[in-house]
């Protein structure tokens, strides 16, 4: 326990977290500090490119086994199952409408790639190894949650817009394509490819991540400020309960399929995290009546900071114990 607290304390004063906190504080104090949209998108493209490629190189180095397939399956099952858990919790805990609850549930079944990136950075800093293919698992967990949420809403009498165009949009959305594509290219080109572009994707990675987290803090803070009042306490409580529930389910799945302690920790992180890019966009198309401010503010303003500060070190500590690291 004291070990967990020490780890969390250490995590809390890392530049990554402090820059996120700086962004949130600046936005709440109504500073005009802001990143141009193009710069924010450029940084996110860089992070996806780098994390995907490094994951692929990892797989090329260590070979691929049944573990990859099992992990992908586990990820898909978690992503499709978590929305039901989230939806149930929301209907019990909060007064959100069915539509809003289903939309929020989709966010929590899916994943936040920056939370994943921050967690891998912490693992690396701690010297904890993990499976390179976890980045592929992250990609596989983006979409099933959307399907589950649309099924929930349809059962509840709603009429989600699930035209064929929607499915291409979800499965071929930019972040999935870049993540999976870079992963495949890293896998194909392996150590040789790595040697060519290592200087671009490794040395500056942490610094770019700090800047990106500063931007996310700004966006999250702005969201919280303009949504103040719109989020009932019970909804806020869901925002810190659901990640813990998700992490526990991720822990179970990770142990069942026999991931390394680092891999288990990452599966917990993925399950605990909530999408703020792919799912919000899909929900605007498929469930336009859902209030985007609720799910986005919850995912970005509550769950993301919770995971970043307390969640990740907690999940890592638990995973190390449970998977005997």
């Amino acid at each position, binding site marked *: 326990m004291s070990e967990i607290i020490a780890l969390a304390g250490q995590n809390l004063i890392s530049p990554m977290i402090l820059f996120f906190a700086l962004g949130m504080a600046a936005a709440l104090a109504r500073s005009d500090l*802001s*990143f*141009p*949209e193009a710069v*924010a*998108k450029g940084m*996110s493209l860089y992070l996806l490119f780098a994390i995907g490629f490094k994951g692929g190189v990892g797989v090329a180095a260590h070979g691929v086994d049944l573990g990859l397939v099992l992990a992908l399956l586990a990820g898909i099952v978690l992503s499709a199952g978590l929305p039901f858990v989230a939806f149930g919790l929301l209907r019990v805990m909060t007064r959100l409408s069915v539509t809003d609850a289903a939309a929020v549930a989709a966010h929590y079944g899916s994943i936040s790639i920056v939370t994943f990136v921050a967690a891998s950075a912490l693992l690396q800093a701690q010297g904890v190894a993990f499976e390179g293919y976890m980045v592929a698992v992250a990609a596989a967990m983006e979409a099933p949650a959307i399907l589950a949420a649309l099924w929930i809403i349809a059962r509840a009498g709603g009429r989600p*817009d699930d035209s064929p*165009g929607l499915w291409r949009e979800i499965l071929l959305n930019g972040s999935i394509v870049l993540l999976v594509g870079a992963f495949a290219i890293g896998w194909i080109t392996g150590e040789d490819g790595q040697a060519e572009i290592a200087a671009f994707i490794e040395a500056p990675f942490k610094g770019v991540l700090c800047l990106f987290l500063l*931007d996310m803090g*700004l*966006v999250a803070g*702005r969201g919280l400020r*303009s*949504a103040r009042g*719109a989020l009932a306490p019970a909804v806020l409580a869901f925002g810190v309960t659901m990640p813990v529930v998700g992490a526990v389910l991720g822990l179970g799945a990770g142990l069942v399929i026999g991931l390394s302690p680092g891999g288990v920790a990452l599966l917990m992180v993925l399950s605990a995290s909530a999408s*703020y*890019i*792919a799912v*919000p*966009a899909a*929900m*605007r*198309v498929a469930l*336009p*009546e859902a*209030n*985007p*401010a609720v799910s*986005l503010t919850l995912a970005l303003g509550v769950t993301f900071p919770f995971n970043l500060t307390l969640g990740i070190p907690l999940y890592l500590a638990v995973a190390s114990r449970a998977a005997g690291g």
Partner: protein
Amino acid sequence: MEMHDAKRVEIIIEAMMEKRLATALERAGVTGYTVLPVSGGSGRWGPWSREGQVGRATGMVAVVCLIRPDRLDGLLKEAFAVLDRHIGVVSVSDTQILRAERF
């Protein structure tokens, strides 16, 4: 300069719906339109801005379409089918254009 009566249709719509709107306009036989970026705004869900945003969920675009008056109804019908359940606004103003043969 000879000017011709026309309508200026301005559709402010969610960025996610831009492609669907384009398809709808094509269906309505409209081939000319121009898309302007939108940096922020305010609506029933309060103010928003694109600053620092990565996702596309909270963005809008403004589509400007100059058409011959007799094509207006077809356009509105198709556009409305797309807009229907979505947020966004449509306004139609009288205007005059040069080079009407192109419209």
